[in-house]
């Protein structure tokens, strides 16, 4: 090779594809960038009607610019710029943009009841587990009151144990509290919701901890029932429980069912890959779990305020029964367009 490997010549500037391309489309890219920046800083409301109409067109132009640039241009900075701009525009256009109110409306109208409906097998299993473990605890404690202390920690019993007199037990059922009712209700709501979320998350460990939690819940129920039944107070305890318990136990069972759905999807993914199965189970289960937080807020009000002010057994049963009927109708009432595509 010689010195003639290069030579300076008077020639028109070399025009590469990137330059040609920029000259043709740079204005559109810049406009899209401006719009997207404004939307990122504030929201879609920062755009005028003209801008909103232009947005999808500009987005598609930029996308096709990117596709062309990747195939014909070697200017890396141009390609990177177009990639980033397209991604930013994509997020603004396809991100969660529907208003909060529409999302909430959809949640109450379809998302929540359909998610709970979809969990009916697991929910039924949880209810049966609760009943079975309650029965076991009931018969154990009736046969040998010593079992009571094996099931229920002393701090939780609060004197309601087999050694308590019928009068003392009756008093705990009908005691009227007048102060701090709202605080008590709030405490019950946050505490129980935390447990529901916990039960859901624990389902990840192949559902085992969730099932244990549900079983223990049933055991406590049965043990208390046995103590009160021994003194002939079973019907009264039923009212005390029913007023909030139909809502609360239902919520806990749904949260448990959601956790079990996730655990079983991971343990037994079936035909799909494990990750696909987990996602398909996870999203609707999370909606059902979010719904239980609302149910527990209602239960907290019923327990914290309703039970302290309503002391008549039949009224307590009536309120509890009405709540249960309401929830069952809301969740399992047949809906039209059930097969329409639903995004969990």
């Amino acid at each position, binding site marked *: 090779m*010689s010195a003639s490997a290069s030579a300076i010549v008077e020639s028109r*500037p070399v025009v*590469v594809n990137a330059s040609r391309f920029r000259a043709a489309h740079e204005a559109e890219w810049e406009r899209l960038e401006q719009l997207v920046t404004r939307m990122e800083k504030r929201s879609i409301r920062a755009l005028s009607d003209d801008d909103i109409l232009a947005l999808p067109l500009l987005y598609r132009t930029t996308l096709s610019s990117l596709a062309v640039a990747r195939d014909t241009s*070697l200017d890396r*900075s141009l390609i990177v710029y177009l990639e980033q701009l397209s991604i930013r525009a994509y997020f603004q256009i396809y991100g969660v943009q529907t208003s909060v109110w529409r999302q909430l409306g959809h949640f109450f109208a379809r998302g929540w009841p359909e998610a709970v409906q979809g969990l009916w097998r697991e929910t039924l299993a949880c209810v049966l587990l609760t009943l079975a473990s309650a029965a076991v605890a009931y018969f154990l404690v009736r046969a040998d009151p010593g079992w009571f202390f094996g099931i229920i920690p002393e701090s939780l019993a609060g004197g309601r144990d087999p050694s308590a007199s019928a009068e003392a037990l009756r008093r705990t059922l009908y005691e009227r509290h007048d102060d701090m009712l709202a605080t008590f209700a709030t405490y019950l709501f946050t505490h129980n919701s935390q447990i529901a979320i916990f039960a859901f998350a624990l389902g990840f460990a192949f559902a085992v901890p969730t099932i244990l939690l549900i079983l223990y819940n049933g055991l406590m129920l049965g043990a208390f029932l046995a103590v009160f039944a021994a003194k002939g107070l079973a019907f009264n305890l039923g009212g005390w429980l029913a007023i909030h318990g139909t809502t609360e136990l239902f919520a806990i069972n749904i949260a448990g069912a959601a956790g079990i759905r996730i655990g079983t999807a991971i343990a037994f993914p079936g035909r799909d890959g494990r990750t696909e199965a987990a996602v398909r189970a996870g999203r609707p289960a*999370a909606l059902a779990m979010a719904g239980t937080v609302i149910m527990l807020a209602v239960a907290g009000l019923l327990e914290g305020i309703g039970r302290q002010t309503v002391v008549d057994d039949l009224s307590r049963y009536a309120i509890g029964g009405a709540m249960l009927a309401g929830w069952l109708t809301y969740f399992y009432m047949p809906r039209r367009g059930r097969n329409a595509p639903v995004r969990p």
Partner: protein
Amino acid sequence: MRPFGPKRRGPFSMRRGFVTPEGVDLQLELGTAGARAGAFMLDSLMIVTILIVMTVGLAFLALASKAEMMLILWLLGFFILRNGWFSLFEMSGRGATPGKRLMGLRVVARDGARLTGGAVIARNAMREIEVFLPLSFLAEQTAQGAADLFLTLFALVWSGIFLFFPLFNRDRLRIGDLIAGTWVVRTVRASLGADLLYSIERPRRTFTEAALNLYGVYELQTLEDVLRADREEAIATVAGIIRHKAGIDEWSNDREFLSDYYAALCARLESGLMVGRRRENKFEQALTRR
């Protein structure tokens, strides 16, 4: 997409295909484990700060009047901070908590569809076992004063599994991401660099076939980086190497020489693209005219 799948060969890359409904692959870049840990730290810091401010503020108000009201507000505030901070921010259009925004991260559905409320709730409810369970273990231990060795070990192992879970799969998925079908990507914004060639109006050098056959796309883009960075020594070194390889002994302005060589090489490789021949790097066969 398949964290449990067989290992792929090839160098590890954080870029993942992401096909839009229009059919263009946008190539998202995943957030690194470090950035995500940083974002979580920032969020935790904000939550704790708000909690302290809220507690002190409500305590003062409670002293003034309506103690019960303040207690209720505190209970609800605590509940929302703990369970709602992440979900509510990620459900908003930005798909990111304040911490994630500061670190340039964003939550995206892995299938390219809209990020739904169900997904956001699922990924954040899992924090309950990832973060709060070991935390409450520790809190209980400290409260009781007597640290049971077995329980402490169990808590450590448990939190270790979940904390480092993202490092054990190639997509950096948390347990929550796994369940929700999401991943966390970087939101980078690049500005369009100046056009390297168009603006220059002066006589250009031309190069022989042999001199232009030296390099491929990879070298061209490295040269682009050198020109854009515009550092004196780097330009001198690179110009020297190219002159040496091409056998050019003309030692005038380095920057102009490189710029001209870049233009000529770019035009030549692009003309190769037009006929479907892309020379990836200098080790591939040169584009020869037949």
